[in-house]
């Protein structure tokens, strides 16, 4: 048993080192050999992948014999466990062959940037999924947060100001107000679910409609009268548009600020889920609500906490959307919740509650963005993209479920 374990470890380290070596060689020979237009940044990717894999293989924890026996992975099990990831790899390779321009750092960074807000939403919604619930109001909260924050962040000289007499407030203030507005509705969600034991589907559906109405009322206030909010202050827009390390070397596009923001939020959520009492209670309530009650967990307070925390993340996503696009309308965020739920589910979060990891959710969001971006890249029609997206959801979840149904 220990042999197979160390063999897979060695395989990973060796494979990683080989990738690393090929990457370094290619990096230095691509210019002289005139491969620049053929392989683009492939060497850099190979170096990164190689280094990560070698490091992981080297660092992998020695499992105890019993654990290794329980894991007892066969090749076919490996396939089912990673099917969607492998399918994505195949697709990426195909796209790279059809369109070598795909192999650029710029593309990878674009994908990560596009994933950022989606990821923040998915992390919020995963809390509600973990207690076997759902949150249909997520998308509308993004819209609310975008409208509220943008409405107070217009330049003084802009003709069509939402609040003509508003002074130039500090940037953090509208952000806090926007997020607080979302949290109020999050608390309403939580209250309906926790107090009346309402199914989250219905409770959040009701709140979704309320939010859209409230947001539209706000948006329709004179003098704005439902016109798209524009003239956003540059210091606010920077929050979504700033690029770090721009042009540190030739042709480097810079890293969008959205990426580090999403990374920080991922770490925070991972910490909450794995290292805090609240996180453990979320898994417990999702795993067996009755038993959680008996164990003395305050289910009411925890469910309130779940929906408020989730709405806070939607609020953040909304602010970032407003900043990124330097504008807002009351239709922002429409339907985002379904994308977020789909990404969570593809990432292995169980709709029956209690099962789900941050790593899986990141994977789920990335898979969707990569596939969408890749299909656009090779000019697949948007209608076909929709079909493919739907197929991915169905197939991914079907494969995921077979894991639990083994005889």
């Amino acid at each position, binding site marked *: 048993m220990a042999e197979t374990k160390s063999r897979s470890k060695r395989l990973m380290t060796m494979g990683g080192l080989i990738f690393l070596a090929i990457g370094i060689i290619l990096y230095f020979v691509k210019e002289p050999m005139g491969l620049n237009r053929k392989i683009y940044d492939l060497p850099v990717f190979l170096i990164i992948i190689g280094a990560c894999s070698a490091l992981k293989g080297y660092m992998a924890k020695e499992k105890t014999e*019993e654990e290794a026996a329980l894991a007892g992975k066969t090749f076919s099990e490996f396939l089912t466990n990673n099917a969607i990831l492998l399918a994505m790899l195949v697709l990426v390779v195909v796209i790279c062959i059809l369109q070598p321009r795909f192999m650029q750092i710029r593309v990878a960074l674009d994908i990560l940037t596009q994933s950022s807000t989606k990821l923040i939403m998915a992390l919020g919604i995963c809390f509600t999924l973990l207690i076997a619930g759902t949150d249909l109001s997520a998308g509308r909260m993004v819209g609310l947060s975008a409208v509220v924050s943008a409405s107070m962040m217009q330049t003084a000289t802009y003709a069509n100001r939402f609040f003509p007499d508003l002074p130039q407030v500090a940037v953090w203030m509208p952000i806090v107000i926007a997020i607080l507005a979302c949290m109020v509705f999050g608390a309403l969600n939580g209250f309906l679910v926790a107090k009346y034991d309402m199914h989250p589907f219905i409770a959040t559906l009701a709140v979704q409609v309320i939010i859209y109405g409230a947001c539209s009322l706000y948006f329709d206030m004179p003098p704005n009268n439902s016109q798209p909010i524009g003239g956003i202050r540059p210091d606010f827009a920077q929050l979504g548009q700033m690029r770090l390390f721009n042009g540190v070397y030739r042709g480097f596009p810079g890293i969008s600020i959205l990426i580090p923001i999403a990374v920080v939020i991922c770490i925070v959520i991972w910490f909450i889920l794995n290292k805090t009492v609240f996180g453990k209670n979320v898994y417990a309530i999702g795993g067996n609500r009755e038993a959680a009650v008996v164990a*003395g967990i305050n289910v009411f307070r925890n469910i309130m906490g779940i929906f408020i925390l989730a709405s806070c993340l939607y609020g953040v996503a909304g602010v970032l959307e407003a900043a990124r696009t330097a504008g807002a309308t009351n239709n922002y965020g429409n339907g985002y919740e379904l994308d977020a739920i789909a990404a969570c589910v593809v990432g292995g979060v169980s709709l029956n509650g*209690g099962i789900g990891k941050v790593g899986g959710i990141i994977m789920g969001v990335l898979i969707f963005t990569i596939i969408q971006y890749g299909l656009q890249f090779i000019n697949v029609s948007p209608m076909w993209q929709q079909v493919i997206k739907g197929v991915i959801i169905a197939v991914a979840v079907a494969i995921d479920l077979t894991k639990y149904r083994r005889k």
Partner: protein
Amino acid sequence: MSEYLLEMKNITKTFPGVKALDNVNLNVRKGTVHALMGENGAGKSTLMKCLFGIYEPDGGEIYLEGQKASIHSARQAMDKGIAMVHQELHPIRFRSVMENVYLGRFPGHMGVVDHKAMYDKTKALFDELELDVDPLALAGEQSAAILQMMEIARAVDMKAKIIILDEPTSSLSDREVDHLFKIINRLRSQGVAFVYISHKMKEILEISDEITVMRDGTYVGTWPVSNEKGEKLTIDFIIKQMVGREMTNQFPAREGKPSDEVVLKVENVCSTAKKSFQNVSFELHRQEILGIGGLVGAQRTEFVEALFGLRGIASGEILLNGARYSAKSPGFAKSKGLALLTEERRATGIFGILPILENTVIANQRNYAHLGILNDSKRRVDADAECKKLNVKTPSLNTLIQNLSGGNQQKVLIARWLLTNSDILILDEPTRGIDVGAKYEIYNIMLEQIAQGKSIIMISSEMPELMGMSDRIMVMCEGRVTGFLNKGEYTQEKVMALATQFAGRKDNTAA
């Protein structure tokens, strides 16, 4: 024609990391009741699941009436005349009894259900089994006993040749058990064979013809219950085969006596629900095990749940260590030093999809947290120590609790409450569905806690356990306390007499 109706030969089944069955044999004759015995985790359920097509065995053969049979699904098993009545029944609650009986094979033509035929057939079946149940009544409103009979009726209607009964009597009252046995006897005389899984020795000796014993996934042996000379097997013999060692005492010796100090005083406590417990009064002393006896429907569980803040209390007074205590919520009860091990382990006890670690510390998270952030290594150390102390058998703390046997799950749940360092442990059927060895361990844990100055309230429906462990027994009937019996003065008859004090009314409300 073979001598046996069913032969299972050298059945082997391996799960990742565990050999659940290792060359197990089971031979059942026509028209007999064959008891299948063994501790929890011995592989009885796995063997039956192999027979019923829920699991695919890795090796071995199954013969039905001498013919080799391959069974890949429950449907195929039923077509071949095998029926199974599971330990925990899950009827379709909001549909009628008759629809549950004919589920999956409704009588009718071209997809249109013939309700009248279904009603008549169900009625005829129930008459035959002497069941007084309206076929149109909702299944969710029926007692466990009725649901079980319903399943048996279903098996009879399907002309089952072999009926597997998994712990059929675990939630039945004595009277209901008698009825069940009557039905089994009648069907046996008609040639139906039963595989009977149970931990209750007395029942096994009363009802079965042959006994097969399993231990740790292996086959130990098969014996007729009474030999040609009419001598019966003894309980000690069977236990010895099951555990592989002599078990002289069913209960560990109790040392010391309860102190005079009253830790809990309950006075005239009434439920908010009309039909639940009324005017319950008692005192619990430090270092005392107070047993609560009674039949199904005596509202014992409801009472302790109310004490723990899970149900409403309308009136009455509770004094905890002399101070007024109002059972607001389980969290509050926990903070006041109460612990409740619930009756339904799976429904309200374990978090099946979480590892043992989380299951052990879940009621005690605050003690490992600073500003809501958990100290992981401390949790692990404590959970590990507690699980080791209680002898939980598991590969690691990361194993999902649903992969443990019932006895080990129960030990984890006890560990959970011991970690909270509660003063008063309320144990609701602490050893239900648990094997003999694990039972003894749990009794030992109880006595250890008593020795440390704690007090225990124990609900038990098993008379020997109630009388073997309690310092004092409080008997309830129909939500009322009907009497107290002190150690030394209780007999099975006295407890039963108190438990059926309102027997006249019992038939309409309970059952």
